[in-house]
């Protein structure tokens, strides 16, 4: 069957043009027939007869081509007197002739100047709306938060909170620890290479301590947590939205903020400072290991120098950022989760957006902190 062909020919008898078709007029032949049929004209014959009685097989694509040919001939001024087909195909051709007068579908272009302009416009309006919604959400969070603190009405779910601390904090220990250890090694190595030129290798310790404690410890941890937990918040809450679980909670009369947002943000608020402390320790260990192998500074010597080099403030300046980052990551993750529409594709889209937004905000806030601290001379 795959080798069978469709064919047609034109026969001219005086004023009459006969369009004779045969073979298998099916979808696999349609591309070829389409090319051959284009530009077909009645050639001035006022009457046309379409004879499809030689057609062995006809499907809707073939039937469409016949109907289209007939219409094209009619538009060219000819009168189509008859269209004959084997009886079994009469219903098909009839239904296509009657119903399918539709204009061909036009597929909107996705490239070019105007669509780009449209997308830019949509993006701008979308970003504005997003900011507005986020502000509203932040306000609601503040109120709920304040209420939870001022008049606890049992709306803090301890089991959920502990679960989040475990999920966000304890389960992140291996990956955060390993990465921070490696960061300590990398910084120590780079610092040692530069400082060796000035015979100031011992200042490597200062470099590692300041870099890690003030900036990298908390920043890298926050970025890992944003990728690990912020995305999880969005995906979890988003999936609940798709399954109508959030609607179910609301109809039962449960405050979704209490059960979904508060435990997650609070859990992160507890876990991220602890994780940051742990990160600082791991990175310092990495630095100490590198100092020992690369510079021959023993661990006791490292510790002694460290005590002189930094004050407790260096450590606190880094740690103070952790709760801020925690709230940002938690809020963005939950907010985007609640924005999910009722389709699976939007879960993925918003999860990506949640991670990008929270990493972006974390770095912007970190820069803000740097400026603030330099003004305050800390």
């Amino acid at each position, binding site marked *: 069957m795959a080798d069978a062909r469709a064919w047609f020919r034109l026969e001219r008898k005086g004023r009459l043009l006969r369009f004779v078709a045969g073979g298998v007029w099916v979808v696999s032949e349609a*591309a070829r027939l389409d090319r051959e049929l284009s530009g077909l004209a009645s050639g001035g014959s006022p009457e046309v007869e379409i004879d499809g009685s030689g057609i062995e097989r006809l499907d*809707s694509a073939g039937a*469409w081509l016949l109907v289209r040919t007939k219409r094209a001939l009619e538009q060219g001024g000819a009168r189509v007197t008859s269209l004959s087909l084997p009886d079994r195909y009469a*219903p098909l051709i009839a*239904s296509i002739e009657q119903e*399918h007068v539709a204009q*061909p*579908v036009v*597929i909107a272009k996705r490239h070019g100047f105007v669509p780009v302009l449209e997308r830019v416009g949509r993006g701008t309006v979308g970003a504005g709306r997003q900011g507005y919604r986020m502000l509203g959400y932040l306000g609601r969070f503040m109120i709920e938060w304040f209420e939870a603190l001022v008049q606890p009405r049992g709306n803090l779910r301890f089991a959920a909170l502990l679960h989040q601390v475990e999920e966000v904090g304890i389960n992140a220990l291996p990956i955060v620890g390993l990465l921070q250890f490696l960061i300590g090694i990398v910084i120590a190595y780079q610092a040692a290479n530069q400082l060796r030129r000035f015979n100031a290798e011992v200042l490597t310790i200062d470099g590692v301590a300041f870099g890690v404690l003030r900036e990298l410890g908390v920043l890298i941890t926050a970025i890992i947590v944003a990728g690990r937990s912020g995305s999880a918040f969005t995906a979890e809450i988003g999936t609940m939205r798709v399954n109508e679980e959030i609607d179910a909670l609301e109809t039962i009369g449960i405050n979704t903020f209490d059960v979904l947002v508060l435990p997650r943000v609070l859990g992160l608020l507890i876990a991220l400072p602890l994780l940051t402390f742990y990160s600082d320790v791991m990175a310092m260990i990495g630095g100490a290991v590198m100092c020992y192998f690369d510079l021959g500074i023993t661990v006791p010597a490292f510790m002694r120098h460290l005590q002189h080099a930094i004050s407790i403030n260096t450590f606190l300046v880094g740690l103070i950022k952790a709760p801020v980052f925690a709230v940002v990551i938690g809020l963005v993750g939950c907010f985007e989760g609640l924005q999910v529409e009722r389709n699976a*594709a939007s879960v993925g889209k918003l999860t990506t957006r949640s991670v990008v937004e929270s990493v972006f905000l974390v770095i912007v806030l970190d820069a803000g902190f740097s400026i603030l601290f330099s003004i305050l001379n800390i």
Partner: protein
Amino acid sequence: MTMATADREVVIKVRGLVNRLGGNLIHDDIDLDVYRGEVLGVVGGSGSGKSVLLRTIVGLNRPRAGTVEVFGEDPVPHRERPENSVQMRWGVLFQEGALFSSQTVAENIQVPLREYTNMSQALMNEIAAMKLSMVGLPADAARKFPSELSGGMKKRAGLARALAADPEIVFLDEPTAGLDPISASQFDALLRDLQKSLNLTVFMVTHDLDTLRATADRIAVLVNRKIKIGTIDEIRRDPDPWIQEYFSGTRGRAALDS
């Protein structure tokens, strides 16, 4: 259907099919023939393996034992000549339509055409418009994305995609589930019309007794891991308690005796 079944062409042939899912025996030695041009309705309780049977026939699920032949072939795509694959000769409508969410309805409909033919874009656009009106969707649905459609429209669009390359067999998984009764009976009529005019073979998994009565030539009942096949009247005489409950319960009688 007065034609003797013996001399009709078998397009789907299942022999000795055994399926297990998660340790549970779902199908135990099932034989099934589907003839060209018939509408076969597959019914069964929840978890009786209706959808698994469909998925096995279209090659999404490898059976534990037994064979499945569609047009006398194992339903796997041909590597060298994909245009000869059985995939080109069937269309599948999944429960929620399974439209590709990143593409418009028109692009969805054109996927099989783009994959298996080298039609010009203009012809594919005409065919997409034709399929849309065949399944009763307005022309402006073509530009929409699946997320902008209602459940019923998604099913219709999914059917349009299943019919895009003029398949010989259409598999429908619960085509009327979740539709309101008016849309459901429109769907029945649509299916009947299309089946007649395109001479389709339809393999339809459904719970809907109205749909069965309106469209099915024969019914296959999955019960106790076995299959029972017959016309609706033959099946109703079967003494199996589940079948009696199904067809003679209040809903069954209301649908069948009206």
